[in-house]
C-alpha cells in the first residue's frame, strides 16, 4: 500500500491541476463571450452583402464572361481546401475533429482522381495534416500571438486566394471549419467558396419585385467584380470567427470536464489517504496493547 507521504503529494498535485483547469475554464468562458459578440457584430454586414449579391448575381450568371470568382474556371480538376483550426490545444477534440474531417475530404477527392491543395489556417490543423499529407499543404497561416482576429486577416487571405485563382492554380475552393452550432456543439463542415453559391433568390412578392428595378452605378459587372472579393473575405471572416467562438466553447467544456475529473480523483485519493492513516493507527495501537499485555 502507498505510504502516506506519497498520497499527500499526489493529492496536492491534483489539487493544483484542478486550480489550473478551473482558471482556464473561466478564461475560456470570458473569451467565448467576446468571440460570440464579435460574431454577432459581423452578422449584419454578411446579411446585407448576401441580399445585394442575390440581386446582382442573377443578372450576370448566364453571361459567358462572368467573373471567375462567381462561376469558377469551368473545370473541376484541382481543389483548394482552406482548413481552419485553432492555434492552441487543450480544447477536447475540437482541432482533431476538423482535421480528421479535412483528411477524409481530401482522401475522397483524391479517390475521384482530383488534385488537392491545402492552405491551413491555425497551428493545430497544420501539424495534424502535415503528418500524413504534407505534400498537399502549400501554405500555413497562423495567428499565434494575435489577441483577436480582425477582418484584415480574412481580407489578406481572400486576396491571396483570388490571386491564385487568377493564376489558374485551382478550380474549386472549399472552406473547412468548425461551424458553431452551440457552446457544446461544433460541427466540422465544408463550404464551397468558388464557384460562389448564390443565395436563394428572394421569395416571390414585394421584395423580389423591387429588386428587378435596381439601377447600377457604374454597372453590374463592375460592381460585381468589386463585391465578389469582399464576399469571399466575409465568408472567410465568418469562418474565422466561428472557429474562435467554437474553440473557446470547446475549451470551456474540456476544462469543465477536467475540473470535475480532478475533483473525483481528489475524493478518491483522500479516501485512500484516510483509510491508510486509520490502518496505520490501528496497527500501532494493536502493537502497543499486545506489547503491554506481554509484560
Amino acid at each position: 500500500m502507498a505510504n502516506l507521504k506519497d498520497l499527500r503529494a499526489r493529492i496536492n498535485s491534483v489539487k493544483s491541476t484542478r486550480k489550473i483547469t478551473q482558471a482556464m475554464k473561466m478564461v475560456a468562458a470570458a473569451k467565448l463571450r467576446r468571440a460570440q459578440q464579435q460574431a454577432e457584430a459581423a452578422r449584419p454586414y454578411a446579411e446585407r452583402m448576401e441580399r445585394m449579391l442575390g440581386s446582382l448575381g442573377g443578372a450576370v450568371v448566364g453571361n459567358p464572361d462572368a467573373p471567375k470568382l462567381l462561376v469558377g474556371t469551368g473545370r473541376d480538376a484541382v481543389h483548394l481546401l482552406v482548413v481552419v483550426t485553432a492555434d492552441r490545444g487543450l480544447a477536447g477534440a475540437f482541432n482533431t475533429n476538423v482535421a480528421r474531417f479535412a483528411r477524409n475530404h481530401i482522401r475522397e477527392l483524391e479517390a475521384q482522381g482530383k488534385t488537392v491543395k491545402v492552405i491551413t489556417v491555425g497551428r493545430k490543423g497544420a501539424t495534424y495534416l502535415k503528418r500524413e499529407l504534407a505534400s498537399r499543404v502549400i501554405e500555413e497561416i497562423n495567428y499565434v500571438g494575435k489577441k483577436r482576429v480582425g477582418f484584415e486577416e480574412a481580407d489578406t487571405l481572400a486576396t491571396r486566394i483570388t490571386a491564385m485563382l487568377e493564376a489558374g492554380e485551382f478550380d474549386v475552393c472549399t472552406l473547412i471549419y468548425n461551424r458553431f452550432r452551440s457552446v457544446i456543439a461544433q460541427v466540422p463542415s465544408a463550404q464551397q467558396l468558388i464557384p460562389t453559391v448564390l443565395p436563394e433568390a428572394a421569395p416571390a412578392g414585394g421584395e423580389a419585385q423591387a429588386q428587378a428595378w435596381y439601377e447600377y452605378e457604374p454597372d453590374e459587372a463592375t460592381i460585381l467584380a468589386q463585391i465578389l472579393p469582399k464576399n469571399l473575405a466575409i465568408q472567410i471572416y465568418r469562418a474565422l470567427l466561428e472557429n474562435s467562438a467554437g474553440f473557446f466553447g470547446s475549451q470551456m467544456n474540456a476544462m469543465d470536464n477536467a475540473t470535475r475529473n480532478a475533483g473525483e480523483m481528489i475524493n478518491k485519493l483522500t479516501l485512500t489517504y484516510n483509510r491508510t492513516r486509520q490502518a496505520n493507527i490501528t496497527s500501532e495501537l494493536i502493537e502497543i496493547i499486545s506489547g503491554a499485555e506481554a509484560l
Partner: protein
Amino acid sequence: MATFDLELVSPEKLLLSRPVEMAIIPAAEGDMGVLPGHSPMIVALKGGVIEVREAGKQPERLFVAGGFAEITPTRMTVLADEATPVAELSRAQAETRMREAQAAYEAAAASGTPEAREAAMDRYLATRKMVDVAGAA
C-alpha cells in the same frame, strides 16, 4: 420632413441604424445626395465622407474607405469597407497609411496587371482623401 432608414455597416460592426432626412454618399462616379423616395439603386463607393443630415442637428460626418450602397425608396444600406467618424480620424495615422498605399501603388504600377494597378490607385486615392479629411477636421 420625411425620413428614410439609413444603415451603415462595416464587416466588424453595425455603426449606424436610424431614420435620417438626407445622406450624401461618395459614389464612384461623383458624390450623390440621397433623399427619401430615391429610386432603387446599387452603387459602388469610393473613399470619402458620408454626411448624414437630420433636422435641427449638426450633420454627422463619417469617413469610409470604399464600399457599396443599396438604395430603395424607404431605406439605404451602406456596406463600408471601413468607417470612422471624421472627428476620430488622426492625421498622422492617415498619412502613414497614405504612404503605404503610395508604395503599394508604385509596386503595382511597376509590375502588376492594369487591374491591380487600378485597384491600388483607388486605395491610394482613398487614403489621400482620408488625409485631407483628417486635416480639415
